[in-house]
């Protein structure tokens, strides 16, 4: 287990290197996909995006497609890896649990100064919901994207019903992906969540913060440590 309390440094290890790599691979390729996806719409010329220094290529749909494919390669491989690897290992920390809905409401309220936050696990209840939502969006983008890619290369004349379905799933989930990304950024902007931000860069968060906010998680780590010995 990577999770470890480093008392003398007042830190807890929250994410393994592997998890950091997964997160940032999805984040960076996802952003590239988002932008090149937008450039696959005829907007770059119309909205003068081509006049922005460094974005002269944005109106060339084929150039965007190269980048879109390159990013999709990372996005798809890492997305599937994530599902398979953590799934096989039976890691359930980010899967919503019973009572998460009620707990989310409590946390939300407390963020706006109403009432006390309940003691929490490693992930907040709403974080778990957000995770499942994002995972679903990503999966739909991957599946529809693969169908579209197959059509581009091998079967331009494949069934119109399939092409239309894949296209509209891709378009609708592209919008949802963008909204989910904005929500993700909004969550980071909330002050109580700030101490968690360093975790996704360095893998570690402050121990005093974790003790205070993620009491159940710290208790878990301690329990595991004693049972291991």
């Amino acid at each position, binding site marked *: 287990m990577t999770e470890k309390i480093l008392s003398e440094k007042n830190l807890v290890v929250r994410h393994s290197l592997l998890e950091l790599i997964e997160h940032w691979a999805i984040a960076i390729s996802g952003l590239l996909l988002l932008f090149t996806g937008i450039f696959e719409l*005829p907007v770059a010329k119309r909205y003068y995006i081509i006049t922005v220094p460094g974005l002269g290529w944005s109106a060339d*749909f084929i150039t965007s497609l190269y980048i879109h494919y390159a990013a999709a390669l990372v996005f798809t491989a890492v997305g599937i890896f994530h599902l398979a690897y953590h799934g096989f290992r039976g890691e359930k920390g980010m899967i919503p649990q019973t009572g998460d809905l009620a707990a989310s409401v409590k946390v939300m309220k407390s963020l706006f100064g109403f009432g006390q936050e309940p003691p929490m696990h490693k992930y907040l209840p709403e974080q778990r919901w957000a995770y499942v939502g994002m995972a679903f969006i990503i999966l739909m983008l991957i599946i529809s994207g693969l169908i579209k890619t197959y059509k581009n290369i091998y079967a331009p004349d494949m069934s119109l*019903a399939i092409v239309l379905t894949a296209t509209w799933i891709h378009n609708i989930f592209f919008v949802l992906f963008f909204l989910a990304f904005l929500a993700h950024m909004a969550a980071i902007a909330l002050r109580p969540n700030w101490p968690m931000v360093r975790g996704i860069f360095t893998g570690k968060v402050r121990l005093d913060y974790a003790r205070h906010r993620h009491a159940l998680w710290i208790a878990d780590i301690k329990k595991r440590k004693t049972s291991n010995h």
Partner: protein
Amino acid sequence: MESPKISKISRRSFLQITAGVAALTGMSLPTTVQAGSDTLSTLIDLSLCDGCVDRETPACISSCRGINKHKIPKVVDSIPEPWPRKTIEDWSKKQGVTNRLTPYNFIYVHKAEIETAGRQQTIFIPRRCMHCDNPACATICPFSANHKNENGAVVINPKQCFGGAKCKDVCPWEIPQRQSGVGIYLHVLPGFMGNGVMYKCDLCNNRLAEGKLPGCVEACPRKAMIIGPKKAIEAEAQTRARQMKGYIYGKKENGGTSTLYVSPVSFELINKTMTKKPGQPDMKPDVKRRMVGTDPLGKTVLSAPVLGLAAAGALGWFSRRKKQVKTEEKDND
């Protein structure tokens, strides 16, 4: 959303066309048609086309215009001004133009005066959509409003097209033409998204479904155009090219198309008589299908799920192994 009828050419009409080809050309075509070979191709024989110089308008153009004259609905009185770039393309008051491609004119005839071996020659070249084998105009349409049908016809659905003209940008001949002020974009965000509907030749897809020939093919008094199964048309093009010691255009261009021009004069020379202008494509030999460069990368994308699974398997095995070794060590302690 009404999905367009996919024209899967019926066997009956298919054989009719095949027979039509045979009758028109006097050639014998295979009587049995192999499964999966129902993709159609057209052949345009430039040694036969005389540009219909004795008519006011070439027969292929007149026929095409007659068939498609009601295709574009009435254009709104005040076409919304697109923002921020204010390009509006309105051909509704110039519907009579026949010397280029417009949303109201899907075929035109280019006249080429060529001097070969000290001899002056006039060649007429009917131009329209080539119905490419892997058309970027269709595969890259953000709404899949443009699609290649199984019979080979590349068809834009005017009910789903937003008129962003992306198809025109990626077509090496910039075939599709825009009419602003019509189409679905008017009902969404007319000022900000879309700009009309793109129009081009659809190989008379509806007529094919009824077992009829495309208008231009049927109307040509010189039988300069024929349509039939792709394989047979390709063979016929080869034969004619050999007989006239001529040249073929459309076999390799843009990754292969379903329109083969056969000409006694090289397309190099023909192309020299053409200056690419809006609605008047040139005929550059060997013009590349630009998406071909993206195919290898696309293929690796298709293999990405397997890559992900393999990595997960390998890493899972590795970490289990590590754990095992650790417990064994502990047990030995």
